[in-house]
């Protein structure tokens, strides 16, 4: 089952809006909540995406699946799953740091995000500079 563009946009919009509202409440000291609670929309959104990715990847194991041209697709899906896990690791580390559970440097918190952004830039750069030239 594939969601339509409108459904995907609505999902992203709804969770972004919820997160921003909770973030503003926290930053303006109107809500004395834990940072992990503020990030609840992010956790839910990430969980939905990870489950969707895993279900799609598991679909390959079904009997009767045509594996032609599947290797490239599987590689892409694996990268997406890694990217989601990196994002999740970054959010968890950030929350831990904001809640002062740990005193690690912000450079260490940002490492998963940097890997994610560099990976995204490489993929995008390939599309912008290489594929177009072809």
């Amino acid at each position, binding site marked *: 089952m594939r969601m339509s563009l409108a459904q995907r946009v609505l999902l992203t919009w709804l969770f972004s809006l919820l997160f921003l509202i909770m*973030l503003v409440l926290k930053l303006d000291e109107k809500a004395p909540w834990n940072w992990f609670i503020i990030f609840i929309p992010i956790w839910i959104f990430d969980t939905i995406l990870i489950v969707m990715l895993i279900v799609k990847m598991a679909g390959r194991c079904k009997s009767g699946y045509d594996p032609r041209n599947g290797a490239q697709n599987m590689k892409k899906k694996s990268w997406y799953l890694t990217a989601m896990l990196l994002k999740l690791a970054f959010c968890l580390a950030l929350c831990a740091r904001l809640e002062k559970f740990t005193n690690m440097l*912000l450079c260490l918190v940002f490492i998963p995000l940097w890997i994610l952004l560099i990976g995204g830039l490489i993929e995008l750069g390939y599309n912008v500079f290489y594929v177009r030239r072809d």
Partner: protein
Amino acid sequence: MLFSLRELVQWLGFAQFEIFIHILALLVFTVLLAIKVDGLVSDLGWWNVFIPFFVADGLSTYFTAIVTVRLFQDGEKRQAVLRLFWILTILSLKFVFEMLLCQKLVEQTKGLWFGLIMAPVFILLQLLMIRACRVN
């Protein structure tokens, strides 16, 4: 992942190259932010930390101006004007948000509350939702 690159370009109205510039700016910004917060460089101000975003906004505006001129030359005036208005609206809202946030971080003014700083982002979200309906 959730959106293909083609869908993102269609929805946001930015070219792939512009998206590339903004992600690169985000990467440089996070590096500078980490350096600033960890105190690795003592005389790094908040305005300096935000420079990558301002540069990306400037480059994006320049790129949009070139695309608009080219579209005008090709006779696609309606598309040129619509693209120019959309991109300038998005970039101005982003720029206002960055300026307000930077101002808040520099001066720690009590009057400038985060609800106010985030107002351009909320407007941006509504505009993106409206555009998503149009794209569909």
